[in-house]
């Protein structure tokens, strides 16, 4: 009846896990209680759970990301604390298997449930607005993606309470993740959490790829797309082409574990290295899926806060495309030690080093954009500067690791751990937080607090160096990664320093949550009336903050790469049309949460081999999709009068804010004003590449 699930699954040997469960369940009950007490369930259901509005979906993605940032960080801090207290003659405070669950959980959560939802959240909030669209191409699919991510996250969470999580590392290498070596349900939880979130990401990739290609406002040719849209386009291409590889690898691993097949087993003709190849055929593009959109964020931030056109836009576009292409050619560098011939290793090593070239192009483009710009040192600029310096160093250590000979020495050492944190923390985390600050007023209508933001920045930056420079040194001293305890006394000092670094990062995370709290408290003071708090250059700043559900009352016409700046310079921003029209928008629907709920139960049932339940859920998902196909696309109409009222209110606020006055005095830095004035009108746009698709 209940498969492998017995009461034993609820008992935990470690007091720490029991304590964590008490906190998790307690917090959950508290939230449910408060929501019930304040009668918020109806509001949540109507406005959030059933919505198909990309802006709200984006906000919920980032909400999920922040929860998992906390959980992933707690895991990291516990790993650091264990290694600082488990040296020679010391016990540490964790059992080895619990330690293994922690580093597995940390990697899994940070990649799949922090970075990915955060990126997709920013894409959701910004991209339809940047390209002048009213929504994404498939709003319901977008909601399904969101709730599938939530369902997958819930599987990770529930593994803490019922059973256990994987001990096989975030990459789940076979044969260790096979049934012979990992008989518990941990790996199954890991498989289904990743599988469901991976499918969600694939759907998001399809959705945004079509959105960017098909839904751009008239006049927005490829070479007029904002940089964030460009990098996201490349990311969606990578998603569509790489995530299916992960889907297959995980599905076959699940079959090995539950159906007795021999894809990746060590015996009976299975091929263990096949899994590792397939994992990294996805895994390496995934690195760029995480980092490219963030490069886009930095590009937006640098142009906005330097008050200058992006330097080398075309080189930036080509560099992004080059990185996206090259990301598929380097996966073997994750296992130079597999035993293939030196020629093959050399080829992949060289391909890896080549990636440094387009990345360098980007770094120089950002620096040249700052050159002679009027730099405003707002928080996102700090994140950007911190990123440029830190990321360049991380990239250098990557080029070092790309040399197969050197990699034989560094492989699986803390040097590697230091390297990928050194690129992912500045390259993803810093940029996500910069984007968070940058687009926050657009999503919520008020700005984030600057002071606590700076505390957060310095906590992260200083904490990063204190935590990870020692890991580089430990790697050079030969310390392998993922050690629950060790006997070398020389390592201990540096691991204590690294643990102190984790504490400093903890302050950065605390300051970030303080920043959100303080900003919410003082929201009336920090209102963004004009919708353009930073003197923005792209279309999202031309509409109200937060935008109305239809985004654009009139779909704008794009004349320049910096479409909104062009409007401001030509005094065509904030113009009211002669008349408004009715707007059709997709209706809210509970079908996304139904499908995701079934997916969650399916995952849980598969983990515990409750086959009848898994089968029922699968049928339920198919049935829900079929049932939906019988409903004609439900829409509702926003009448023209209501649009007019909303837009008039916005224009009043714009006037009150003085944005119209400011528009007349846009200062000319470099050849700003003449650059825009010289842009030819669309009718005379010359070259082929500048034409809309």
């Amino acid at each position, binding site marked *: 009846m209940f498969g492998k699930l017995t009461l034993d699954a609820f008992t935990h040997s470690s007091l720490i896990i029991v304590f964590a469960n008490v906190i998790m369940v307690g917090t959950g009950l508290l939230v449910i209680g408060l929501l019930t007490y304040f009668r918020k369930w109806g509001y949540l259901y109507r406005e959030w759970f059933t919505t198909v509005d990309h802006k709200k979906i984006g906000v919920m993605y980032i909400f999920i990301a922040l929860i998992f940032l906390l959980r992933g960080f707690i895991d990291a801090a516990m790993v650091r604390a264990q290694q600082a207290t488990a040296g020679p003659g010391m016990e540490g405070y964790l059992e080895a298997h619990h330690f293994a669950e922690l580093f597995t959980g940390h990697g899994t959560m940070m990649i799949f449930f922090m970075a990915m939802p955060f990126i997709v959240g920013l894409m959701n909030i910004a991209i339809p607005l940047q390209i002048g669209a009213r929504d994404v191409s498939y709003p319901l699919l977008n909601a399904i993606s969101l709730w599938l991510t939530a369902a997958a996250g819930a599987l990770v969470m529930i593994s803490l309470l019922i059973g256990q999580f994987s001990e096989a590392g975030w990459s789940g290498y076979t044969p260790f993740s096979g049934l012979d070596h990992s008989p518990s349900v941990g790996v199954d939880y890991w498989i289904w959490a990743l599988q469901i979130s991976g499918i969600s990401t694939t759907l998001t990739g399809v959705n945004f790829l079509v959105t960017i290609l098909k839904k751009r406002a008239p006049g927005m040719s490829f070479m007029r797309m904002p940089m964030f849209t460009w990098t996201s386009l490349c990311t969606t291409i990578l998603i569509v082409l790489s*995530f299916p590889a992960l889907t297959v690898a995980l599905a076959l691993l699940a079959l090995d574990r539950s159906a007795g097949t021999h*894809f990746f087993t060590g015996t009976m003709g299975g091929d263990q290295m*096949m899994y590792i190849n397939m994992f990294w055929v996805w895994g390496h593009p995934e690195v760029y899926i995480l980092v490219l959109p963030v490069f886009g964020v930095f590009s937006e931030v640098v142009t906005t806060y330097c008050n200058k056109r992006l330097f080398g836009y075309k080189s930036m576009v080509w560099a992004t495309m080059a990185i996206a292409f090259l990301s598929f050619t380097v996966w073997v560098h994750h296992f130079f030690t597999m035993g293939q011939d030196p020629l093959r290793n050399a080829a992949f090593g060289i391909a890896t080093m080549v990636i440094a070239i387009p990345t360098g192009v980007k770094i120089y483009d950002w620096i040249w954009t700052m050159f002679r710009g009027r730099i405003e040192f707002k928080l996102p600029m700090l994140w950007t500067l911190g990123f440029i310096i830190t990321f360049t160093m991380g990239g250098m250590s990557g080029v070092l690791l790309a040399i197969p000979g050197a990699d034989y020495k560094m492989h699986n050492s803390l040097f590697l751990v230091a390297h990928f944190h050194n690129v992912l923390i500045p390259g993803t985390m810093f940029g996500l937080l910069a984007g968070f600050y940058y687009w926050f007023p657009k999503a919520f209508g008020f700005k984030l607090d600057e002071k606590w933001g700076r505390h957060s920045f310095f906590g992260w930056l200083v904490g990063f160096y204190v935590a990870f420079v020692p890991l580089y040194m430990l790697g050079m001293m030969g310390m392998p990664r993922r050690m629950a305890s060790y006997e070398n006394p020389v390592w201990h000092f540096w691991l204590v320093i690294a643990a102190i670094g984790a504490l400093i990062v903890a302050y950065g995370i605390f300051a970030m949550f303080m920043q959100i709290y303080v900003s919410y408290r003082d929201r009336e003071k920090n209102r963004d009336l004009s919708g353009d708090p930073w003197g923005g250059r792209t279309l999202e700043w031309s509409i109200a903050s937060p935008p109305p559900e239809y985004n654009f009352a009139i779909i704008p016409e794009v004349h320049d790469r910096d479409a909104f700046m062009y409007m401001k310079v030509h005094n065509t921003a904030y113009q009211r049309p002669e008349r408004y029209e009715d707007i059709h928008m997709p209706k809210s629907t509970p079908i996304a949460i139904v499908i995701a709920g079934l997916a969650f139960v399916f995952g849980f049932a598969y983990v515990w081999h409750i086959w009848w339940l898994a089968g029922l859920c699968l049928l339920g998902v198919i049935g829900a999709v079929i049932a939906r196909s019988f409903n004609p696309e439900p829409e509702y109409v926003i009448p023209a009068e209501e649009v007019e009222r909303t837009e008039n209110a916005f224009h009043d606020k714009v006037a009150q804010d003085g944005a119209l006055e400011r528009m007349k005095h846009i200062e000319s830095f470099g050849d700003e004003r003449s650059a825009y004035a010289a842009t030819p009108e669309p009718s005379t746009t010359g070259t082929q590449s500048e034409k809309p698709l």
Partner: protein
Amino acid sequence: MSSNAHDLNSIRAAARADTEVNFGFWIYLMSDVIIFSMLFLVYVDLSQRYAGGPTAADVFELRGVFLETMALLLSSLTFGMAMVNLHQGQKERVVIWLGVTFVLGAFFLGHELSEFAHLIHEGASFTRSGFLSAFFGLVGTHGAHVFFGLVWIVVMVVQIKLRGLTPPVASRLARLSLFWHFLDLVWICVFSTVYLPGVLQGVAA
């Protein structure tokens, strides 16, 4: 159907490959291509790993596979006929050709399942060796796609009966058509990667 001139145009427009929703389906198919190419890779990698069990030459029987293949190829043609009739607004004929397609697809799937059952009965199950795992994995994934294609055909027939050839129905039929032809294409690759080399090995030996 004389009063339907306008309808016919909107039906044709909805069935165009480059409408937003059909374009998205193309993108989805590209991701499915990656799924299949991964499974092909796995098969090629494991195709000689018999682990002392039956070899490809032992388990493949070309006559049945040939019938299967013909049925599936023919079903692509009959689906094409359904689409031609869709463009002419001939509701009844669309249903008939979809029915023929369904029968051919069901024959294919039934044959495949009986082949699977036979193999498992003979002790050549997917748990026997890496080769057989890869074989069942690749062919089974294709079969699962055909199964969902069949379900989709039934759903579309019901929708045509209930709604007639409206633009949304025509648009869905266009995607189903893409899906069906795609499965045909994949099968041709399966036939020439799995069955032909397997049987040729036996001939060479």
